């Protein structure tokens, strides 16, 4: 390599010995890494491994306790997001975060500094310059969008282009190459727009570097040049993509090989009374005439699109929503006045998809959350015994390997995967659990946490509970389900007993749409 100026040969980003702690938790223990111009780096790790902390340090939201950050060879200190964005580091967030009532140009300008080139000065817009600089930025990523268009009028894919334009900004790349962080662009992945993602990454690669964060190991391998693996706040591996396999990555992330065994199917004892019998349940405009017989130890997976009525149905089973007609019976006896407290007292549990809103009381400690639904074991009548509560919580923390191992910590301070473990514990703590309704239980979970949750689902089955599962993906439904119910527009359009039938994802899709 010929020796040019220091700037041209310096890596886009170099971190040296970055550390960050929150209270007793070492979120990052000495992270050092380099990212070169034009590289696409995959960043993976379990929830709680320190990925988000690292990203927040790169974007100026957190300040590291120690260590050095260099961008294009220059040592920098980020006091806030504005500093990191001025240094050429941009983020495309998990969810689209655009202002739909503003124009494309305004959206691009809003996160950039004030100055002549960006078209804002002293807080005032110079509309001509604003639109020109937005068009220039869009041009870099090969988009021909009109900067004056209102973002609300754009298609999903075009909005994604605006997100990227906003991340790279106009003045980045002039004196170095920009670094764009794609933070779990799940909105794209969930829509199956993987080719859009690949195109984005190719374009970004042409003039800058990319950090791609995802839980999907196949996506990571397909798109990245190099893969960084984080575990417990440390960088445990730095591999060139061609030298690793998915299994290896999993092992590096979790610390042990995947021991997810294929679930053994449970067959129906047709003479037994179903634990849960839903007969001809209807709710006007949502679903009609739904019948389900869920047996002990079996998982009934319900698949369907978002308008299929499966969410409403699952909430009706838990007593969280009303139904117009039909009936629900537990162990053969019909229930009356079906509300959440009654359902819970009869041994019905529910893990909602909106974990932070409905699944938990974030400001309460993990221990208090675990005994909240079934305080019986930790109380004598109405009197709560804190030492009993702590003992129960500690047992669950050990069983589920919840990290950090601190039952007194407020639950909203845990990572998503560990929160979900606690939410599961809350229901598994019921010795008489009969029906467990799971709405997207693995959403946003890293493979390690997902494995733990899946194990607990199987354990609940072994103890005789009937499980109703609204899975994230069809593959998950096919793998976990003993029985699969397909719903479309509020009606059951397919029913498979997995002991007998062997439907493919295509078979299910056909009946869903």
């Amino acid at each position, binding site marked *: 390599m010929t020796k040019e100026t220091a700037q041209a040969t310096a890596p886009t980003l170099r971190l040296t010995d970055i550390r960050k*702690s929150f209270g007793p938790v070492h979120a990052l223990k000495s992270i050092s890494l380099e990212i070169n111009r034009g590289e696409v780096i995959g960043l993976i790790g379990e929830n709680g491994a320190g990925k988000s902390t690292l990203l927040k340090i790169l974007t100026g939201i957190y300040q590291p306790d120690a260590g050095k950050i260099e961008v294009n060879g220059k040592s920098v200190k980020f006091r806030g997001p504005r500093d990191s964005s001025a240094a050429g580091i941009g983020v495309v967030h998990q969810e689209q975060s655009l202002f739909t009532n503003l124009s494309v140009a305004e959206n691009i300008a809003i996160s950039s500094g004030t100055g002549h080139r960006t078209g804002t000065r002293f807080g005032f817009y110079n509309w001509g310059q604003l639109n020109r600089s937005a068009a220039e930025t869009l041009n870099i990523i090969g988009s021909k969008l009109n900067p004056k268009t209102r973002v609300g009028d754009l298609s999903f894919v075009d909005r994604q282009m605006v997100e990227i334009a906003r991340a790279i900004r106009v003045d980045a790349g002039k004196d170095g190459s920009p670094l764009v962080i794609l933070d779990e662009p799940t909105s794209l992945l969930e829509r199956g727009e993987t080719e859009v993602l690949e195109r984005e990454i190719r374009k970004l690669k042409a003039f800058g570097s990319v950090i791609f964060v995802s839980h999907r190991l196949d996506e990571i391998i397909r798109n990245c040049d190099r893969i960084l693996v984080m575990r417990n706040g440390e960088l445990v591996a730095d591999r060139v993509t061609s030298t690793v396999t998915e299994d290896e990555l999993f092992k590096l992330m979790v610390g042990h090989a995947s021991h997810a065994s294929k679930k053994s199917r449970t067959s129906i004892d047709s003479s037994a009374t179903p634990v849960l019998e839903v007969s001809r349940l209807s709710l006007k405009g949502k679903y009609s005439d739904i019948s389900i017989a869920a047996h002990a130890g079996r998982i009934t997976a319900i698949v369907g699109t978002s308008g299929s009525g499966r969410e409403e149905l699952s909430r009706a089973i838990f007593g969280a929503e009303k139904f117009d007609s039909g009936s629900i019976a537990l162990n053969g006896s019909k229930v009356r006045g079906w509300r959440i*407290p009654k*359902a819970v007292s009869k041994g019905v549990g529910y893990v909602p998809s909106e974990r932070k*809103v409905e699944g*938990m009381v974030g*400001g309460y400690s993990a221990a208090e959350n675990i005994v909240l639904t079934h305080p019986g074991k930790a109380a004598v009548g109405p*009197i709560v015994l804190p030492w009993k509560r702590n003992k129960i919580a500690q047992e669950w923390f050990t069983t589920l390997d919840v990290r950090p191992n601190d039952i007194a910590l407020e639950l909203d301070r845990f990572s998503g995967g560990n929160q979900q473990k606690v939410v599961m514990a809350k229901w598994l703590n019921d010795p008489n659990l009969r029906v467990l309704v799971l709405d997207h239980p693995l959403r946003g979970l890293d493979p390690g946490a997902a494995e733990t949750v899946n194990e607990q689902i199987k354990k609940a089955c072994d103890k005789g509970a009937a499980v109703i599962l609204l899975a994230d993906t069809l593959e998950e439904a096919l793998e976990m389900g003993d029985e699969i119910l397909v719903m479309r527009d509020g009606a059951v359009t397919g029913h498979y007993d997995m002991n007998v039938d062997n439907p493919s994802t295509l078979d299910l899709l056909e009946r869903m749409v």
Partner: protein
Amino acid sequence: MSTTVATGAVSTEKATKDGLLQRRATKLWQAVGPLVIFVIMFAVVAILTPTFIGGGGVTIVASSAAPILLVALGQAFVLNIGSIDLSNAAITVLGAILLAMTLGPLGAVAPLVVLIMVTLFGAVNGLIVAFAQVPSFALTLGTLGIFQAAALVVSGATTVYVDANLDLVAWLYTGAIAMLPMTFILGVVVAVVAWLFLRFTRPGQGMTAVGKNESGAIFSAVRNRGLKVVAYSLSGFMAGLAGITIIAQAGSASPMGLGSDLLLPGIAAAIVGGTSISGGVMNPLNVIFGALTVALVPIATTALGFDPSTQNLVYGVVIIVVVALTLTRSRSATVK
């Protein structure tokens, strides 16, 4: 190489220690902040006015804190569950008037009857908030007016004097333990019972859960509506106790008299005592010091010889500063 590793380990350890210390310090301040602030303020006043303690300052502060404390404890229960009760001071006045009217004819049964009535008034507030889902601010602003009107009608818009049996309650004001009047002791006892209730009972824990995240609590089978009714009933009950202390002190009650201006001091005392306005944080023991602080400020400004026209100014500034010091902040910088 080995040296860098060693220093690295040390600095990480140090960072951890600092973080842990910080967390412990925050928790400690949450636990004793209101006490410390009251003690400091009281000491300053005592030093600047040497006659303050000798002249019965302690008794004066405690007896004027008593009704504030009782109203504030009820308010704190409602705030803790995520609502507000603007009508509780009006319930105090109505309760005091009812007691003044019934003490003569009913004797010892009268306080009991009045307490049952005010608890029901509170329960009505709670039932409407929980089941008709009227926002608590709007509803209790309305019932505030209704209870005030009821007080006017019942009393005939004049002062009602207790015509007999006053000694049944008067001992609360005249009796004292260690310079502290029985009315204040009553407030402290209620606070201790409230503390035990919140910390060690299922309904108490449920109430705090509802205040922290109502949806999360509902989906955990916490009976949020029932608990709201309980919180408002407690607010009514404690407002009634405050009404009894007023009769004990004055022997009479009127719609415009003692107790009619308890609403804002009650809210201030709850908040100075560390209760969160947005719900989910409450320590009844700290409300004691919140009430003492709120009661101390006007007495202290008088004792220190402030011009009467500046007393409200001082009161306002002190409340703001004290709340800024004792407020339990959430990690995000948003405050309702």
